[in-house]
């Protein structure tokens, strides 16, 4: 096992002692894990099917057509496992299948003939928090929407941090013209109304995931760059850097072995806030209709639906709650990280 720097261990311990942040982190981790393996909990595909003595595991496999399970000659498309379950039940054979807790995928429109979406929460239908206006399961939409939002933010974080750290470090370290030039660029960049531009671009080209990450990071890199520049600027004047220099270390070595590791704390402090702003950005864009294309599960779209269907309280309640939980946990984690890395002396006098 790698030996952690005891200072780091101390910081981790300090973080753990901030209960609000610590439990938020646990909750957040669970949420992310659940969303990564959401297919196991929320999916229209069965987890296991036993049919005529063979076992099938449809969750992560290719589509299995209904023909395979004897649902009909023309059943060339994806088996409806819920129907299959009903069939198995009535047949009384030893065929059986196991469905996930919520047997719907986020795209599936589960409409009915006699009543109309949005359907309220129902245990019988297994829409535990109801459906949206197209009859899609709310939990499924929310969970898969969370997955997309969080990965969007992580990708965004990754891209902006890579760019920000590279340019920021160079600016702070080399200084001079390069620094001056990018200072101006950043000043300009951060003044450009970024949401407007994203809207303009998004309205003419229906962005996909990667494209949207790129567009948003195209305007999002300045923050991290500026932060990195400032830290590098301070850090490079510190004596341990001089010490490395006096040993004859190259600039690259100094940047990568000395400066960047010492800025990690600050980078880490900003990460949760970047993540929450990533989520908010995506949600806002989706809400305005300039985010990922339909029918991608998305909180923004659900928010939009919920404003329009207030009588369907389950939509607004669920999505607003999900948003509040996620964003507050992320924020609490961020706050706790900040406090753990930079504890404030609490001093008052008599």
């Amino acid at each position, binding site marked *: 096992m790698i030996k952690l720097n005891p200072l780091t261990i101390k910081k981790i311990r300090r973080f753990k002692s901030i209960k609000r942040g610590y439990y938020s982190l646990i909750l957040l981790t669970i949420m992310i894990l659940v969303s990564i393996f959401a297919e196991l909990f929320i999916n229209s595909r069965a987890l296991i099917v036993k049919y005529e003595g063979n076992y099938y595991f449809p969750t992560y496999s290719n589509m299995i057509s209904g023909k395979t399970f004897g649902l009909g000659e023309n059943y060339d498309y994806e088996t409806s496992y819920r129907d299959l379950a009903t069939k198995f039940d009535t047949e009384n054979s030893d065929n059986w299948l196991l469905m996930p807790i919520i047997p719907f995928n986020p795209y599936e429109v589960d409409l009915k003939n006699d009543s109309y979406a949005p359907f309220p929460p129902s245990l019988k239908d297994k829409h535990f928090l109801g459906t949206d206006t197209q009859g899609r399961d709310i939990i499924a939409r929310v969970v898969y929407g969370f997955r997309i939002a969080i990965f969007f933010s992580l990708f965004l974080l990754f891209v902006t941090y890579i760019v920000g750290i590279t340019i920021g470090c160079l600016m702070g370290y080399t200084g001079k013209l390069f620094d001056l030039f990018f200072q101006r660029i950043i000043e300009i960049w951060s*003044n450009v109304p970024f949401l407007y531009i994203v809207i303009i671009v998004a309205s003419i080209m229906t962005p996909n995931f990667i494209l949207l990450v790129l567009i948003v990071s195209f305007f999002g890199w300045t923050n991290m760059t500026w932060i990195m520049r400032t830290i590098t600027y301070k850090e490079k004047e510190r004596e341990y850097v001089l010490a490395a220099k006096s040993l004859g270390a190259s600039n690259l070595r100094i940047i990568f072995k000395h400066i960047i590791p010492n800025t990690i704390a600050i980078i880490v402090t900003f990460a949760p806030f970047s993540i929450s702003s990533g989520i908010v950005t995506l949600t806002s864009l989706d809400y305005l209709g300039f985010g990922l294309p339909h029918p991608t599960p998305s909180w923004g779209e659900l*928010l939009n639906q919920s404003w329009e269907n207030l009588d369907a309280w389950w939509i607004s309640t669920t999505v607003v709650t999900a948003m509040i939980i996620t964003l*507050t946990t992320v924020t609490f984690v961020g706050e706790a990280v900040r406090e753990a890395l930079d504890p404030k002396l609490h001093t008052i006098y008599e």
Partner: protein
Amino acid sequence: MVSYFIRRFLLIIPTFIGITLMVFTITRFVPGGPIERMISEAGNMQNSGNIQSEQDQPLSEEQIEELKKYYGFDKPLITSYFIWIKKVLSGDLGISTRYYDPVWDMIKNRIPISLFFGSIALVLTYGICIPLGVLKAIKHKTLVDNITSIIIFTGYAIPGWVVGGVLMQYFASHLDILPLGGFVSDNFEELSLSGQIFDLIKHAVLPVTAYVAGSFAVMTVLMKNTLMDNLASDYVKTAIAKGLPFKTAVLKHAMRNSLIPLATGFGSNISIILSGSFLIEKVFNIDGMGLLGYESVLLRDYPVVMGILVISSILFLIGNILSDICVAFVDPRVQFE
């Protein structure tokens, strides 16, 4: 000092050109401007209403060329940029391609509205954050601190427009005690002065809450953290050692120093005052600068977009200078050599 500001102002120029040129370029290469709008209108028109026609197609190439000329899109990018900037310099922001009104008039009409919300929000933010930050710093890690932390971070986490939407649904639609957005009632002019004030307040409560909810946390925490730093500093110890009661030491010594970082952010708040948040304005149907900008972007009213950009970037740059002045005001160490 004067020369400092002159140079500061001079530095605005390249930044200003950079910002405007960039947006100008983007708007140039994006379809959906007045010409595209006319093309699509023409397409619809010949299919609509009473008029009967078979020959017609949407506009021909020559007609499109003519329109380009009319709107000045026939010139190369740089030329038209310079034409634009020359006009801006002479105080002419151009004409909206949507309303055919002078852009400046349109902006001018929105300024009071945004200013109203912005300044109330600003006053509230500072007015609440500073005392709250002080309280939290002194009561660090107590119940009061923890509870207010949870409240402000929750407020911070949820975007203002979501807060706004939720509040409006509850107070305006459900409880029906506050108006459904808008800036003032339709019969505003007919109201008495007190009625007008009351009407304004009624309309302002929710949007202001939405505006303030998010900016709260940042400021409060900033205030708290710097105050805590300052409380632990030597000079507060000195002040107390002189015989100053703790409270007085906080107010007279620690506070002023803690205001420095807050003053640094003051300038950017100035520009936010005016530009507002279009999402909140959209939710509350407030005709401010934010909404104007948003609608102009959606409908590709680029002169207005550029006009707002001009105003907001000048405000931002001036805001920076204002920040400098503010900081210099509270911090004697800062000098404009």
